[in-house]
């Protein structure tokens, strides 16, 4: 028996056994928490996966494949205009960091071979916060206000942090490595306006399919709400044409998909309840799109492959995050294992202490991609103030204890410590300001 190796499986078995042996089923708070976790994950599946996450994955996949990373990286290289580099670094996260795993290598690259520690720090702070999936889900679940605040806050304060890092360490700016940056290939298969239109249509479909019902029964918002499915359908038809004309997918394949969706709409109303029908049609459209693109041997195939990779990577993590958030904090208006008073006491209101605590916890806690959203949702429902919520949103995804260790390996303790402190301070300040004005 090799105890050195075997103690690990033994430890796991014993821990699981003890956990299950002492499972507190029967204690109301525990049962309720389990119930809340399941209710929350069901709600996510019903309300957000089909109409919001799936289009978001397609958009993220498209960004990964069709946006020329090389042209963005030009602005972050060693010879780039330094002032422009800050601006580009602060927003390029949405385009470059669609996969959260690329943030750290990119940071290391910009720091050591590119524009330097200033733009690199700006990128590191804003990247995880403004990746396209994060913004879409934040706006959808936590509200448009929060989504915009997160995006704007990340961009604005990333520039401040970047400049601060640059000024603090300007005397130490190491000589740039003589190695030439290896650029990804610049393949512009189509003119920019076509790519832009393609993205515009996808984003428009996402926005209109998810157009929320306003409280008032009149006005522009309400009118659009009434027409949302008509608008979405027209956009989808346009999208079908784009797929045929610009992406060379055979017209008969796209037509079969389109016809199936139309058939569902026309004949399905007899078997499917009226309010669920649009969702079913939308899902059918998504399935049609998946089938049509996955068999394609060209760019559309790459696009689907990229989309599918995101879905595989993120859905399990999100599911797990939602279950944990539901178990710990419960749904809106309900409680999980953690009593709401604890949350309100710790991070309720808008005090400096609350914002700082949220920011500090966020910096050290690890959030798998997108899991910060259900957790924030639970915290806010349990009494967390809006200011501290934003603070957590800004500090959370950018940092975690593991990532701090990697950063330490790349730029050393002093710079890492300074960066982390700047993040916590900026997140706290953003939180206080947001909580005060909104």
């Amino acid at each position: 028996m090799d105890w050195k190796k075997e103690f690990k499986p033994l430890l796991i078995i014993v821990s699981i056994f003890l956990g299950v042996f002492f499972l507190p089923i029967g204690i109301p708070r525990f049962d309720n928490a389990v119930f809340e976790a399941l209710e929350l994950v069901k709600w996510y599946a019903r309300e957000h996966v089909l109409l919001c996450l799936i289009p978001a994955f397609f958009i993220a996949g498209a960004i990964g494949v069709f946006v020329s990373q090389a042209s963005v990286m030009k602005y972050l290289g060693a010879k780039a205009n330094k002032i422009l580099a800050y601006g580009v670094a602060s927003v390029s996260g949405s385009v470059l960091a669609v996969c959260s795993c690329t943030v750290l290598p990119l940071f290391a690259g910009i720091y050591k071979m590119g524009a330097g520690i200033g733009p690199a720090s700006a990128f590191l702070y804003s990247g995880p916060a403004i990746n396209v999936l994060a913004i879409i889900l934040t706006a959808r679940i936590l509200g448009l206000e929060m989504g915009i605040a997160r995006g704007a806050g990340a961009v604005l304060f990333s520039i401040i942090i970047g400049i601060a890092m640059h000024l603090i360490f300007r005397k130490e700016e190491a000589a740039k490595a003589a190695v030439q940056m290896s650029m990804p290939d610049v393949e512009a298969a189509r003119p920019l306006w076509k790519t832009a239109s393609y993205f515009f249509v996808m984003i428009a479909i996402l926005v209109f399919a998810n157009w929320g019902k306003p409280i008032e029964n009149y006005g522009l918002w309400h009118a659009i709400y009434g027409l949302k499915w008509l608008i979405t359908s027209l956009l989808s038809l346009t999208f079908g044409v784009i797929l045929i004309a610009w992406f060379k997918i055979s017209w008969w394949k796209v037509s079969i998909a389109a016809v199936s969706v139309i058939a569902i709409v026309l004949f399905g109303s007899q078997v499917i309840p009226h309010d669920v029908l649009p969702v079913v049609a939308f899902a059918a459209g998504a399935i049609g799109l998946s089938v049509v693109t996955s068999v394609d041997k060209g760019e559309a195939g790459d696009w689907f492959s990229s989309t599918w990779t995101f879905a595989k990577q993120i859905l399990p993590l999100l599911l797990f995050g939602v279950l944990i958030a539901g178990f710990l904090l419960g749904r809106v208006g309900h409680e999980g294992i953690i009593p709401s008073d604890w949350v309100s006491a710790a991070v309720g209101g808008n005090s400096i202490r609350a914002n700082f605590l949220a920011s500090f916890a966020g910096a050290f806690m690890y959030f798998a991609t997108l899991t910060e959203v259900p957790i924030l949702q639970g915290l806010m429902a349990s009494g967390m103030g809006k200011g501290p919520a934003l603070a957590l949103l800004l500090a959370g995804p950018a940092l975690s204890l593991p990532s701090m260790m990697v950063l330490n390996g790349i730029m050393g303790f002093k710079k890492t410590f300074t960066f982390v402190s700047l993040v916590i301070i900026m997140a706290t300040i953003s939180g206080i300001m947001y909580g005060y004005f909104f």
Partner: protein
Amino acid sequence: MKKIQILGTGCPKCKKLFEVTVQAVKDVAAEADVTKVEDINEILKFGVMMTPALVVDGEVKVVGRVPRPEEIKEMIK
């Protein structure tokens, strides 16, 4: 004997590139040795900022994406 290196810090795309490359090597029965480079500082030495990346005999062939198997086979011939 070709030396193929996959540069990546361990994210899913990097793992996928490794698997696809190993498979491609098998498919064309190439004489090649496929290894992973996971240390960031080592990766930077290649001038690579966007992982994953594919390096054949010291030359960076693909940066920032997972190429199709046909593309990889072209590169390792």
